[in-house]
């Protein structure tokens, strides 16, 4: 975890995040987001979370973003939206002000985070972030939350099926 790869990857991540926001084409936007996710996955690897990194690729890049692409292609809407649209100019103004305020707050607060006791990386065992440890933590300490997450997924699945049924229209 050294500064050089961190900064290099940060640039990539931020650049593609910006591309997502500023891009005209939704499919290109989705691809930018995939690259951003890949960069974040590498961050996860750097932070010793290998299992989560792989899950990030498999779930976000492999499933969620494919779903986005799928819907984009299914609807296949062209040129309805024009990048940074003009209509309510005030909206963009508000967004800019709020964004700057948010950045400012984070800029002020981030250095304070060092005071939380984790300024430097803690010494962790070799298997930190391994599937075994994630599994143990998940099923030992957070079993109930896990079961609830399962229910949420089930409910979401049923909701999606019901919503997407043609009859609704």
């Amino acid at each position: 975890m050294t500064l050089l790869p961190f900064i290099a990857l940060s640039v990539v991540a931020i650049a593609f995040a910006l591309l997502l926001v500023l891009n005209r084409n939704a499919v290109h936007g989705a691809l930018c987001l995939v690259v951003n996710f890949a960069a974040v996955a590498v961050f996860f690897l750097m932070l010793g979370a290998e299992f989560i990194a792989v899950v990030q690729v498999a779930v976000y890049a492999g499933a969620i973003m494919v779903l986005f692409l799928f819907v984009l292609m299914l609807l296949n809407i062209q040129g309805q939206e024009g990048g940074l649209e003009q209509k309510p100019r005030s909206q963009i103004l508000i967004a800019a002000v709020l964004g700057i305020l948010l950045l400012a707050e984070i800029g002020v607060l981030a250095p304070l985070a060092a005071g939380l006791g984790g300024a430097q990386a803690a010494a962790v065992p070799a298997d930190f972030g391994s599937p075994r440890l994630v599994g143990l933590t998940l099923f030992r300490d957070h079993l109930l939350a896990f079961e609830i997450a399962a229910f949420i997924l089930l409910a979401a699945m049923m909701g999606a099926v019901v919503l997407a049924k043609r009859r609704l229209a």
Partner: protein
Amino acid sequence: MAWNAPVPFASWVMLSGVLFSIGAVGFLIRKDPIIMFMCIELMLNAGNLLFIAAARYLGIMAGQVFVFFVMAVAAAEVAVGLAIIVAIFRTKSTIDVDEMSGMRG
């Protein structure tokens, strides 16, 4: 500062914060709900990144498990959200969010 110096925790917070801000601003300025959705995913990811970083710097596994849950919820949210968008598109033949301002379809 040497290039191979360790990354301080504050940098992770900053990075995560910048990504989050981009997502938030993107959500505010775009009109295509699918892109707005992607901006939400971006914000969630920024949060995940902070979780993982905190887990590493504090040496606590719980952070990684939380990310796991965030992913599960994000997947659920995308499934339902996209289904809603598809349903709206079917009835309105448009997915401009500003067109979706009525309380009934």
